[in-house]
């Protein structure tokens, strides 16, 4: 087990919900209420001075529905840690912009694409879609083809013809012919 995970466990105890190691990568699952404190601890005490990325996962039918994922590293590339926190649909996440400035745009993207709100964010606006777009397109229930919307003089969207798609490749296929992208249900 990575020394960071052990240190986090002794510092936060109950708040650490789980840990995982996969091919030398360490992940800790923490309670949402303790997330900001854990992040601050990681930066100040454990030397994770570099926030690589923030993303979010939609588990759709599972409760809590969402999961925040933070990729921490240090500038000299000597350490890496992934921190995850489950987020229910009606919960807000404490922003980490005050710890790492770079979190600003990452959190805006999470808000835009997944609809998770952040408290104490300095400028929580959409970043990829335009202000006024009514959906959060990376949620699982949102169709890949999109939905029609209209904002006069700003932008509009339509529905893309799918022609039997979306076409997906199979990761378990053994040869390149079987790996060709196909519509679901088509062999």
């Amino acid at each position, binding site marked *: 087990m990575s020394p960071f995970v052990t240190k986090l466990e002794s510092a936060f105890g109950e708040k650490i919900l789980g840990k995982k190691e996969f091919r030398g990568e360490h992940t800790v699952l923490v309670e949402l209420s303790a997330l900001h404190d854990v992040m601050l601890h990681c930066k100040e005490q454990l030397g994770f001075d570099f926030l690589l990325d923030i993303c979010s996962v939609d588990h759709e039918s599972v409760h809590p529905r969402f999961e925040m994922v933070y990729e921490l590293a240090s500038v000299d590339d000597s350490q890496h840690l992934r921190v995850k926190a489950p987020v229910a649909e009606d919960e807000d996440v404490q922003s980490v912009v005050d710890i790492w400035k770079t979190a600003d745009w990452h959190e805006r993207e999470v808000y835009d694409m997944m609809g998770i709100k952040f408290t104490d964010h300095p400028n929580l606006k959409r970043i990829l*879609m335009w202000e006024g777009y009514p959906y959060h*397109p990376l949620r699982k229930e*949102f169709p890949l083809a*999109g939905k029609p919307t209209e904002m006069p003089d700003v932008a509009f*969207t*339509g529905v*893309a013809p*799918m022609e039997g798609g979306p076409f997906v490749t199979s990761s378990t296929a053994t040869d390149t012919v079987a790996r060709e992208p196909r519509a679901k249900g088509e062999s």
Partner: protein
Amino acid sequence: MASPDPNSTNYAYDSKIEGNVTFTQLDAAINWMRKNSLWPMPMGLACCAIELMATASSRYDISRFGAEVMRFSPRQADVMIVAGTVTYKMALAVKRIWDQMPEPKWCIAMGACASSGGMYRSYATLQGIDKLIPVDVYISGCPPRPEALIEGLMKLQDKIDKEESTMDLKRMPEPEQV
């Protein structure tokens, strides 16, 4: 001024008085002038723009066809080359730039994305720029090679050559339908 095509009826070309007098039709003269100095508005939106730049550079040299004067102001441009993925966020901006171009104007949809949305069958991408502005020439490819863009430009030149330019001048412009 002459087309080397001996079958062309547009020009009465006499080599004995070359440089002095040439008889032609007004349409043919206007079209000839228009098609050989097409000033493109480079609407480079994604990877296709790289090929557009290559076409303009020395190796492929689009100036051989009179279209080297890339105008970044729509008011000075004749042909909009839409090179790349048109997202919905960009779509109305492309339309506005098109509206600012003075007549006569033409549009080339360069590449799969500009022609049909390409591989982006998604919520974010306009499925072809022809949903917003009239396209004269579609160029297939992802991206099209510079030769293909030059071929498309030559196709557009052929098309301009057949236009009834003087009649178009007389016609009242129809009110735009939205």
